[in-house]
């Protein structure tokens, strides 16, 4: 009796254990076979990349958008290159004559969050831009609600603005694409201008949708840099923040495709930007064999990645980070071969400047695509000099040099 009681769970446990190992080892096979049939349009799959699931790619990879962004990287931008936050690619324009007003209006801003250094830097810049426009008599005030990375909170925020906010215009930085679509449409139905920026929504009802070129462009820039500086068969560790965010997934989808096509062996990890995890993953990879390149879908944690190589005593990798000061400084200190892709932080100014145009009755681009130009090693010195004294979490292309409070506000990094 007793033995039987003990043995049954034992058998189940060991069977499960075997099952886990069996599935974990065999995940490669089914995905490989499906990729062969489904992705006939793709060039022949690199066998080296078999541990990545092409099924995930297909979910985020969109050939049309990829091609569009590929082209936009070399597109001509309208406007003065000195003020990139006002530049855009020529395209459909929204007529805003109906919104023309000579009074200062109230802006209502539904923000996804300020939970990473990129958003914080942008948020500071936005507030300084607001100050300038309030002084100018364009905007009377801006009421902001921070959703703290939560879809439900942001939907409630938008609905609050619609019903009680007494808003003359809405600015929305969506937390996620699909979930926010209905709420943005409700805002559009009020008949007031709606400005969406950064992440998108699945509706084109907004007066203007402001964003840099996009995630695929980031992925193309960074992957091409690594491919140019590495040999075929070299190993790249890809450090990713988290799954499921479209902007980040598109960066990886483009990079992974290019790595595959060019015979670069890439392994990806989700780190949550936690430097402990980053160091652990890299150290384990170094233990396993040489690592020639590091690719990041966001620069947060880049320093920890480089330190992992230093502590291990390994040769520094070819690396792509971001235009965050911590990476630019470490890049210069170590002299590694690197590139700082940019997800133009100055876009945080544009929504308020768009409102200025809208209330003046000037037309604005329906989809306002801002320039997105990586910082190369040659330009690095200039950006380091221009941002001397800025904290580590600051972004070099923050674009606020002509705003009130420069540079103290950014140096102190007082989050409003």
């Amino acid at each position: 009796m007793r033995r039987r009681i003990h043995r049954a769970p034992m058998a189940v446990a060991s069977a499960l254990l075997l099952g886990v190992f069996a599935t974990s080892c065999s995940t490669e096979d089914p995905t490989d076979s499906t990729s062969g049939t489904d992705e006939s349009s793709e060039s022949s799959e690199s066998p080296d990349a078999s541990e990545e699931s092409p099924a995930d790619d297909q979910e985020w990879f969109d050939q049309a958008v990829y091609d569009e962004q590929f082209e936009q990287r070399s597109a001509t931008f309208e406007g003065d290159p000195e003020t990139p936050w006002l530049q855009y690619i020529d395209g459909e324009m929204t007529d805003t004559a109906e919104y023309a007003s000579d009074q200062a209006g109230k802006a209502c801003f539904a923000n996804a969050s300020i939970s990473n250094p990129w958003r914080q830097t942008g948020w500071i810049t936005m507030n300084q831009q607001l100050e300038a426009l309030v002084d100018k008599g364009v905007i009377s005030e801006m009421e902001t609600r921070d959703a703290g990375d939560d879809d439900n909170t942001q939907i409630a925020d938008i609905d609050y603005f619609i019903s009680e906010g007494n808003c003359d215009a809405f600015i929305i930085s969506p937390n996620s694409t699909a979930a926010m679509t209905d709420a943005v449409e409700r805002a559009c139905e009020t008949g007031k201008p709606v400005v969406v920026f950064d992440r998108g929504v699945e509706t084109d009802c907004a007066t203007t949708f402001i964003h840099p070129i996009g995630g695929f462009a980031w992925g193309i820039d960074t992957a091409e840099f690594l491919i140019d500086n590495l040999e075929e068969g070299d190993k790249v560790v890809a450090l990713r923040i988290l799954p499921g965010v479209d902007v980040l997934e598109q960066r990886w989808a483009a990079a992974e495709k290019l790595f595959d096509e060019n015979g670069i062996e890439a392994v990806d990890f989700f780190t949550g930007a936690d430097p402990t995890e980053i160091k652990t993953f890299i150290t384990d990879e170094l233990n396993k064999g040489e690592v020639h390149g590091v690719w990041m879908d966001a620069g947060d944690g880049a320093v920890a990645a480089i330190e992992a190589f230093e502590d291990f005593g390994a040769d520094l990798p070819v690396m792509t980070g971001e235009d965050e000061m911590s990476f630019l400084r470490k890049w210069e200190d170590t002299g590694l071969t690197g590139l700082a892709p940019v997800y133009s932080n100055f876009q945080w100014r544009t929504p308020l400047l768009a409102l200025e145009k809208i209330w003046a009755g000037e037309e604005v681009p329906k989809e306002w695509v801002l320039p997105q130009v990586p910082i190369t090693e040659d330009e690095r010195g200039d950006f380091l000099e221009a941002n001397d004294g800025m904290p580590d979490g600051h972004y070099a292309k923050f674009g606020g040099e002509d705003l009130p409070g420069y540079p103290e506000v950014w140096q102190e990094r007082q989050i409003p």
Partner: protein
Amino acid sequence: MSATTAQGRPGRTLPLTDGSLPRRLVRGAVTPGGAVFILAAILFVAVLSANPSFGEPPQLIRFIGRTAPIAIAAMGQYYVIVSGEFDLSMGAVIATQVVIAGNYIGDDEGRVLPALVLMLVIGALVGLVNGLGTTLLRVPSFIVTLGTMLALGGLVRFLTGGAATGNPVDSFREIGRGGIQDVPVVEVLPYPVIVLVLVMVGGVWLMRSPFGRTIIATGDNPDAAALAGAHVWWVKTRAFMLSSLSATVAGILLVGYAGVHPSVGAGYEFQAITAVVLGGVVLGGGRGWILSAAAGAFALELLFSFLNFQEIESTWRPTVQGVIIILAVAAAGRAWSLGRRPSKSSPPAPPAASAPSPTTARPGTETGEI
């Protein structure tokens, strides 16, 4: 399982305190607290076979160094769990200490020592609040420490806005990042390894002291411990303080190892609890060895490294980790009960006596036998 340990000597639950060293080792290996060493050894062999260079002394010592923070945290959690409580605030304490180090020290070399003192004081204070909330206010420790976790999490968000602020001076980070150079065999002896050894020695000494015995007695049966003259509230409060102080030490090492980021320490409370359980320490208190908790942490880290070496797909990894942890705990417990099964049927009385112990979490193994 407790049914079989208890036979003949219901009070004997600490094999480490009895007999000569070899005898204790042999006896210990078949307890859950000993099985974890076997589990760690198996995982070590698995990692080695996946990647032979892992076994080279310099790599190995680095691995021990990077596991030191979680092992120290696990030993801190051990005090609380063995006293019959939980500490969920560990990760938040680590994050707080990391942020304090970044914000307070910054580039000022002179603030290193004051900062260390400040961090230890804050660690002790958090533990005091947790302990007094649990014992004097009689709020379940699960809730008290959840509360401090949230409160500290909010503080960190307030101090940083949720993003990295910048690393403290390198001299402070040396504690977690540096080491003694030019050591024979291992090349470099990381400071975290030294800290880990000190904490281990201190922990073993502490658990053999009257305080250590009281803490186990308290976890086993607080009423009996109180009747025997122990100040249960103060014993438990000190356990919480030890836990928060361990988290502080882990935090200091992590600032050095990884740098300042609010996500440092995230999930450490659950990793520590998992390590403790892997180490065969009974949730609910009263049983377990402190070094088994540390070994549990090593087993856990070896498992993570094994998964890294196996190149499990990144999206799958947490699932695989979770399932393996459950199975490992189950298997460790089973292996032990197999090893301890008496050759002849044991008298039914002792199982009945120990049935109310927390190990009844295995339905069917005890009540059905009576």
